[in-house]
């Protein structure tokens, strides 16, 4: 009895060890997944497990949602930034594409005419009601001289009037001071195209006995000595026959939309073959 009292703790632990060992041995050999105590523990723990699971899960879900929302805001910011960048990039490419298209047309015109040209970019426009000029980024350093014809697809733009070292002012054919010797493509009738500002231009000095109809193509005649022959100028918009006057009143719409002009070619020499 004294032994038992003195070492009760150790005996208790040893007994527990023995019990655990027997339990393990028995269950290793005969365990079929049941066991009375196991069932009791499982039954007793079920409500706690459910409660713990629901609690932990809801906390986890709240946390996930919170983290997800933070992530969402961050992702939204990132995506918005990416969209802005891509839009800017797209604009850049669109701009590049349209520039390429314009330059392609310009090059085609240059090739078809067979003259020596200098290409220039329009850097400013002075477009009052009657005054129609543009400023280009090439000047005397590039070989430009006053009077040189300026063209762009599909035809005539104007002529160089004031040349600085690096910039040049071009008088458009729609300017009130501009006069171009032209002819009608269909009938070869000659006249003078005179600028009228916003209204385009008018064809002067064509007598009433000539054959002119709306839609006739007007092109440079090459007679004035400034513009080469065959450049498109515009199309006859309206023809009226005044009773008291000798000539037709002919309105012409220029082919070129001067408000959208961005690149031009300046004719610097005669035809290559003639050089």
């Amino acid at each position, binding site marked *: 009895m004294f032994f038992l009292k003195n070492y009760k703790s150790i005996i208790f*632990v040893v007994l527990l060890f023995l019990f*655990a*060992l027997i339990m393990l041995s028995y269950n*290793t050999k005969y*365990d079929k997944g049941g066991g009375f105590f196991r069932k009791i523990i499982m039954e007793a723990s079920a409500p706690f497990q459910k409660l*713990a699971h629901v609690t932990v899960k809801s906390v986890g879900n709240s946390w996930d949602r919170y983290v997800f929302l933070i992530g969402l805001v961050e992702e939204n910011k990132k995506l918005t930034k990416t969209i802005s960048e891509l839009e800017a990039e797209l604009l850049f490419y669109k701009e590049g594409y349209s520039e390429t298209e314009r330059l392609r047309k310009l090059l085609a015109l240059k090739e078809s005419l067979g003259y020596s040209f200098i290409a220039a970019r329009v850097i400013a426009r002075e477009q009052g009601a009657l005054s129609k000029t543009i400023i280009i980024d090439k000047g005397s350093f590039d070989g430009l001289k006053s009077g040189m014809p300026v063209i762009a697809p599909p035809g005539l733009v104007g002529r160089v009037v004031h040349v600085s070292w690096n910039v040049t002012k071009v008088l458009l054919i729609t300017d009130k001071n501009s006069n171009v010797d032209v002819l009608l493509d269909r009938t070869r009738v000659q006249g003078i195209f005179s600028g009228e500002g916003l209204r385009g231009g008018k064809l002067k000095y064509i007598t009433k006995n000539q054959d002119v109809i709306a839609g006739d193509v007007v092109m440079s005649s090459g007679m004035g000595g400034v513009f080469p022959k065959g450049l498109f100028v515009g199309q006859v918009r309206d023809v009226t026959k005044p009773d008291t006057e000798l000539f037709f009143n002919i309105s012409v719409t220029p082919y070129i939309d001067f408000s959208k002009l961005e690149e031009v070619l300046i004719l610097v020499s005669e035809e290559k073959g003639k050089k």
Partner: protein
Amino acid sequence: MVYYLFLPLLSILLIALQIAVADVLFSGRLVIEISLIAVIYAGFRLDLIKGAALAFVFGFVFDCLVGSVTGLFTLIYLLIFVVSFVVSFVMDTDKLHFVALFGFVCALIEQLLVVLFYNLLMQFDAALSIPFILLPQAMLIGLFAPVFFYLMRRLEVFVYGKPFHRIERSGDSRISAEI
């Protein structure tokens, strides 16, 4: 007596909670075995009878709920309790880095014993799970053990007014099982 009455309830609560946490955090692949840390804590702080009872009950409930062969974790928990109990007389168990290291070692031993058991008796090769499951789990326990001990120390101070020490360790009695 109250302690022994509440022990099964406490163990069920704790193990249910740790299973739920493991399920949510690691999809059941890793378990933060707070029950094992509690057994180590019992080995360091409680007397032999109370601690052994705790280890036995925790091990048994863990066996029942986790679904391994009943008795395996009971035996291992008892073993770890006894080791912790003995170690508490030789080492300074108040140091948290020691607690972390000891927790890691105990968890590793526990997992290795399980692998060994399955390997030898069930002819089930679980060696592959050592680097992917056992080591991370042991590390988790090593990380959580100091936190658990710190919280328990705060609780001890809150309840007793000072950190709890066993009589044998404070020198009031001889080192024996006569408690």
